């Protein structure tokens, strides 16, 4: 019994230190960033495009637009192709081929972001510059590169969602004479829709947080983009570009940007949780 108590105390202490370590990060970031937002005024911070650290102006609006533009583009590409891949795997594929390809996709999910960025710079950016105009370093380039990066995440979670649809749904639809495609879009996709929504939301979270690949292909211009061929700076790139030399209020402004990202991820996770809970409730 004493050994038991000992083990449980040790585990509790470790768990508490782990949790407090993680809480420390959260608290630290908010403590550095939140007062700065309140000092500058939320409207000034979030809605002003004037990011000029030397003059003491910290408005991140153009970067918010940048992040939104790049993420939207990335999710469009990532969801369409990712979902197509997931549907191909689960609905229209020989099970053995699917079993072979799924690990391939998951392996590919491990490619580092700098490699994607590099490939983007070497192959994609010159293509865009030559055939579509503009600098090549653009919203389009960043969207494509990020879309490819989040693809495996979207595919893998969607595949799990589609596989989790109870077999009787599929069998019933086929038995009623529907073709496989009719079954897919009328039954399977509808049944798996919350899982697929979760996949897209989690992919979005990953796209919002990506830094290195975006710095390499997006151009990092301060102005908000007017077209997909314009260069763009995202919230994460801004932190990465300036954190080495920022000090004082400038550094706190970067932490404030971190707070913004934190809140965005929290919101995305909450939505994902609610969506999956509603699905579980309905099915269960």
């Amino acid at each position, binding site marked *: *019994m004493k*050994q*038991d108590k*000992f*083990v*449980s105390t040790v*585990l*509790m202490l*470790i*768990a508490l*230190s*782990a*949790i407090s370590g*993680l809480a420390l*990060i*959260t608290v*630290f*970031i908010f403590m550095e960033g939140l007062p700065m937002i309140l000092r500058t005024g939320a409207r000034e911070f979030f809605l002003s495009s004037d990011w000029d650290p030397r003059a003491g102006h910290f408005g991140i609006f153009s970067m918010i637009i940048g992040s939104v533009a790049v993420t939207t583009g990335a999710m469009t590409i990532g969801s369409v*192709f*990712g979902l*197509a*891949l997931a549907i*191909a795997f689960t609905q*229209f594929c020989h099970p053995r081929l699917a079993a072979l390809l799924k*690990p391939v996709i998951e392996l*590919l999910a*491990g*490619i*580092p*972001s*700098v*490699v994607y960025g*590099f*490939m983007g*710079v070497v192959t994609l950016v010159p293509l865009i510059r030559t055939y579509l105009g503009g600098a090549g370093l653009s919203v389009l380039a960043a969207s494509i590169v990020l879309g*490819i990066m989040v*693809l495996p995440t979207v595919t893998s979670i969607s595949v799990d969602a589609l596989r989790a649809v109870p077999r009787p749904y599929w069998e019933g639809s086929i038995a009623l004479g*529907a*073709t496989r*495609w*009719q079954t897919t879009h009328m039954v399977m996709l509808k049944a798996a829709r919350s899982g697929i929504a979760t996949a897209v939301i989690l992919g979005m*979270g990953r796209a919002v*947080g990506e*830094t*290195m690949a975006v710095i390499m292909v997006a151009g990092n211009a301060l102005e908000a983009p007017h077209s997909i061929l314009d260069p763009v700076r995202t919230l*994460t790139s801004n*932190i*990465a570009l300036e*954190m*080495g030399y920022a000090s004082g209020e400038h550094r706190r402004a*970067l*932490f404030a940007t*971190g707070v913004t*990202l*934190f809140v965005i*991820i*929290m919101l995305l*996770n*909450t939505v994902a*949780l609610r969506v999956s809970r509603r699905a579980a409730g309905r099915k269960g």
Partner: protein
Amino acid sequence: MRPSPVAVQRIVVVSIWALALMTVGVLLFIILFILVHGLPQVSWEFLTTFPESMGRKGGIFPVIVGTIMVAGLAVTVAAPVGVATAVYLTEYTTEGRLTAVIRFGADCLAGIPSIIFGLFGFVFFAITLGMKLSVISGALTLALMVLPTIIRTSEEAIRAVPYAYREVSYGLGSTRSQMIIKVVLPSALPGICTGVVLSLGRSISETAAVILTAGSALRLPHSLFDSSRTLALHFYILSREGISVSNAYATASVLIITILALNLFAYWLMRRFMARVG
């Protein structure tokens, strides 16, 4: 006249397969492009000699050592702590508000951009705690970054162990700690290891979080307080600065092969886990 459902299906299947193959094609293209350009340069010499002229010539030995030290230390710190936390959360606490909040917090932190961990690590570990740009700054930052993931995957793995195992163990007269150590953990181990190995892969590919914590010194670290460069960062610097295209490809090849090997290993572990518990 409406097209027949069979015709529609044929068109759809073709388009979906086209999209799917394009996708797989692009992913394979990326890997093959790097390997084709880089593998010819990767030799035993490349892996074991020191770089010259800041990476223009020579090998990447200090970078490999730096990567092993930073990522290895990060996971060595995060894994026991994460698993212990997961064990505590699943076995010693009851499902309630608190555990739900902790779980949500861990999920959020698992999704926070790595640059924010980098910013935190730079300000807290390197500057405030005075660790400067060093292996240990980088390792601790990465440890905090992968900790939520390890906690969540370990938790899932432990929960997947059938309750019957626990009942049997109690039935044989074990105490709770004996049950955990001798029955639950061993059964969950493949799942836990998958999470750990994936975290290792994530640490190795990290650039944003190490650039200002572990630094970018191109030398062999002799202690935990020396700065060193990781493979991903070395590749980033070589390619971005145009220092050496061939060495950049070679470094990327080493990086990709390492991560693919790790992912394969994690996948194999997962299969064993499913086979036992599923």
